[in-house]
């Protein structure tokens, strides 16, 4: 691992490994416990493959009761637990720890209820994102958030990461589409948040659970809202001589009151890589390529296509194609959807970043990235969820060249610092995990981080659930709970009293 410090393995836990494995077999009988190194190899990393670690033992429970017993067992014995869904995290959220039980939720793979009148689906957390849509599409419904890993990623993992996708400007993130969960706390207690109704009573624990990266509880059931599929969708493929013009076009589309279903931008290196790979017919003489997809009734889509086309012309577009068939619309997307593998063809390895910026800062950030690219001697291609400012720079490197991974990581860190500097954030949808953990102080001061960790203390006071993720430095809850009150030092006389 390139310089990433993880929590020191607990010697007592390591010493008692055989006993723990045996106890896990009692709690989860059958095939649910894996402890042979060669079989655990499949779980040693997630989508962030640069980091690998075999866990203490892999446990695959099937019921919430088993999850509860495993967590309670571990909690009383001070054993760490790392939850894992499908293992598609791009930030190392499911990276195992040497002394931790890896709790794999893939056997929770059933849809429990489909309720069309209330437009909700209740699913176990191991059901894939696309599996939910597959269960309801014959009735013309779908589940809106569509992370690019949707064929594999689990809905429980989506809750843990608050996953987005290309349609989230219009349809929201996971947090806006989940109505309820059942979860197990580290002490084994099972709680339900929300349900088929809107808004939960009391504090919005569902809101804080969504995107908590597996540090607060283990999700054992998810209730999501489903939507009726739009009648139709059409796309425009628009090329610009500069990223400034492309960016202004996006701003003007939104300024005209149009929220497209999807709005994606690619820079020159990404356009070329994608075109070479899938021959989507992308123009090669432009600096920025914009895909704008409009969905809804065809009368609306046709109306908006006209408006967007006019806005594109006003902003100096040099090419503007409008899809005339479903096949053509898909061909516009083919290059964008293949952007990652396309970049994979032109470089032995690539490293995908995930900052979000205020959209107007795009030209400045792209210029900064060009400078950094020169400084580090590594190429970079950009794909951009243009509507919401979520940038995915792909840094090109070769892991076989000694030192290049480190260089790519430093380059990535500098890009994220730049994102924060212009008013953006470290991660738009991939999560902090281990990858951006040590960059958290770029965005938050110690008081901010301490308050986040105090939330953790309310759920898991012993820091046993997924430690080493999200927070650069874990502080003990007792220490975090101490209050430093300086009586008499407060500027009380300055406060106006009435």
């Amino acid at each position, binding site marked *: 691992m390139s310089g990433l410090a993880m929590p020191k393995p607990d010697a007592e836990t390591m010493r008692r490994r055989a006993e723990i494995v045996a106890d896990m077999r009692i709690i989860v009988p059958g095939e649910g416990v894996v402890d042979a190194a060669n079989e655990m190899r499949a779980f040693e990393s997630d989508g962030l493959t640069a980091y690998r670690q075999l866990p203490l033992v892999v446990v695959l429970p099937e019921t919430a009761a088993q999850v509860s017993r495993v967590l309670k067992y571990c909690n009383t014995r001070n054993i760490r637990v790392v939850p894992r869904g499908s293992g598609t995290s791009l930030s190392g959220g499911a990276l195992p720890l040497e002394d931790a039980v890896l709790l794999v939720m893939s056997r929770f793979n059933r849809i429990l209820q489909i309720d069309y009148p209330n437009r909700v689906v209740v699913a176990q957390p191991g059901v894939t994102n696309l599996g939910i849509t597959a269960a309801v599409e014959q009735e013309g419904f779908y589940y809106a958030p569509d992370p690019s890993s949707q064929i594999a990623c689990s809905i429980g993992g989506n809750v843990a990461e608050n996953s987005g996708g290309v349609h989230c400007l219009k349809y*929201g993130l996971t947090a806006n589409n989940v109505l309820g969960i059942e979860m197990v706390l580290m002490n084994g207690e099972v*709680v339900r948040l929300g349900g088929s109704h809107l808004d939960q*009573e009391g504090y919005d624990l569902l809101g804080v659970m969504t*995107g908590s990266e597996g540090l607060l509880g283990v999700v054992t059931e998810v209730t999501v809202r489903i939507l*009726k599929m739009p009648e139709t969708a059409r796309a425009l493929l628009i090329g610009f001589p500069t990223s400034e013009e492309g960016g202004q076009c996006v701003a003007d589309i939104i300024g005209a009151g149009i929220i497209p279903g999807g709005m994606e931008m690619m820079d020159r290196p990404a356009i070329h890589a994608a075109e070479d790979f899938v021959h989507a017919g992308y123009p090669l003489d432009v600096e920025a390529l914009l895909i704008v997809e409009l969905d809804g009734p065809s009368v609306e889509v046709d109306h908006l296509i006209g408006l967007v086309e006019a806005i594109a012309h006003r902003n100096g577009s040099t090419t503007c194609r409008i899809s005339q068939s479903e096949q053509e619309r898909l061909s516009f997307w083919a290059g964008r959807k293949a952007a990652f593998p396309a970049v994979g063809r032109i470089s032995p390895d690539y490293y995908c970043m995930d900052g*979000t910026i205020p959209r107007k800062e795009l030209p400045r950030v792209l210029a900064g990235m060009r400078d950094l690219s020169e400084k580090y001697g590594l190429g970079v291609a950009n794909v951009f969820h243009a509507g919401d400012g979520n940038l995915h720079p792909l840094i090109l490197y070769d892991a076989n060249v000694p030192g290049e991974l480190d260089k790519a990581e430093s380059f990535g860190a500098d890009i994220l610092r730049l994102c924060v500097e212009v*008013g953006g954030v470290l991660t738009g*949808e991939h999560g902090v995990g281990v990858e951006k953990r040590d960059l958290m102080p770029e965005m938050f001061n110690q008081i901010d981080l301490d*308050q986040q960790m105090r939330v953790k203390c309310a759920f898991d006071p012993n820091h046993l659930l997924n430690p080493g993720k999200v927070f650069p430095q874990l502080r003990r809850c007792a220490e975090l709970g101490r209050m430093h009150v300086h009586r008499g030092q407060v500027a009380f006389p300055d406060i106006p*009293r009435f």
Partner: protein
Amino acid sequence: MSTFTPPSPAEVLSTVQWAAAEDTPLEIQGHGSKRGIGRPLQTEHTLDLSKLTGVTLYEPAELVLSAKAGTPLAELEELLAENGQQFAFEPMDYGPLLGSESGKGTIGGVLASNLSGPRRLKAGAARDHILGIAAVSGRGEAFKSGGRVVKNVTGYDLSKLMAGSWGTLAVLTDVTFKVLPAAEVEVTLAIRGLLDDAAVAAMALALGSSAEVSSAAHLPERIAAKVAAGRLGSDAATLLRVEGFGPSVVYRIEALKRLLGKAGPLEEIAGEASKAIWRDIRDCAPFADGGARPVWRVSMAPSQAHHMVMALRMQAAVDAFYDWQGGLVWLSMREDDAEAELLRGLIRKHGGGHATLVRASAPHRAALPVFEPQPPHLAALSARLKAEFDPKQILNPGRMA
């Protein structure tokens, strides 16, 4: 009795630090427009945020607006309207219901009470649109969470945690919301004369179609006369709102008419008349009678709520109407000791949800659990969370009890 009226976040911080040092609780308020909701507080001091005002950032093309927590909502809505934008979650105004001035309330209060309106069905509540906050915890520490961009998963979402916390976790000083374009046109399709069960079925049918209905409410007979200055007459009205670009709205209304043609007599209501109806539904105008008869706000699965209401009618004198496709029930009840238990028992029996007593006399509020009581494990978790933000219980103590 002192009222602190800090004009800056720094002075909010020093006030809370002082209160923490003195172990003295504070009542946190903006305009006090929702002061009648929740357990009555008996604190010696009040922290009044109404002077902590001002828009700090508004970039329409970036869909983002930041303001100090005490900024009047009405001012912000005006600013957004000038730019063709809005808070899509349509925050309600409790003024009419609580018998106070309408048009009051601060943006901090919008988040602290997680306001929404009829468009909640499609667009979510305040919790779904909050992007970032700055706040002072009961520990006397200024912290921030989130950011100013519409897509962000960096760290825990403490901004959402503030939604519906009624000032019991932290004092908000700054909030940043996602804002969205306002619809060009809105038209409401009314189906007349339906009973509750037929209305709920019609609303489910409409919401399950691709007509993108943004709001669906049912006003039973007589209640219908109490919105939009009686314009609807007193026959039951099942209302479906369609918003968007002109040609699209025409098309979708036609689609709904075909879909629901057999459900009952149909009526189309456009423009200002439509807006007036939804404003009154949003603000619970049918029960805004200037009195103090208890009003409950109940959230359940849309297909279940009317069954609960039917069962309730067998045992109590209630008036009811429905928003959110039937899932939000506004109930006007008689002040009667058993009302809370009866209502909450029936909610549990009909699939679950929650009930909040949003209007009642102070003694009545002091005697009842105003907010839905939670099961033991969840209540314990909430209490631990409160302690992590406000260990000395100095922020609105007991309000959510």
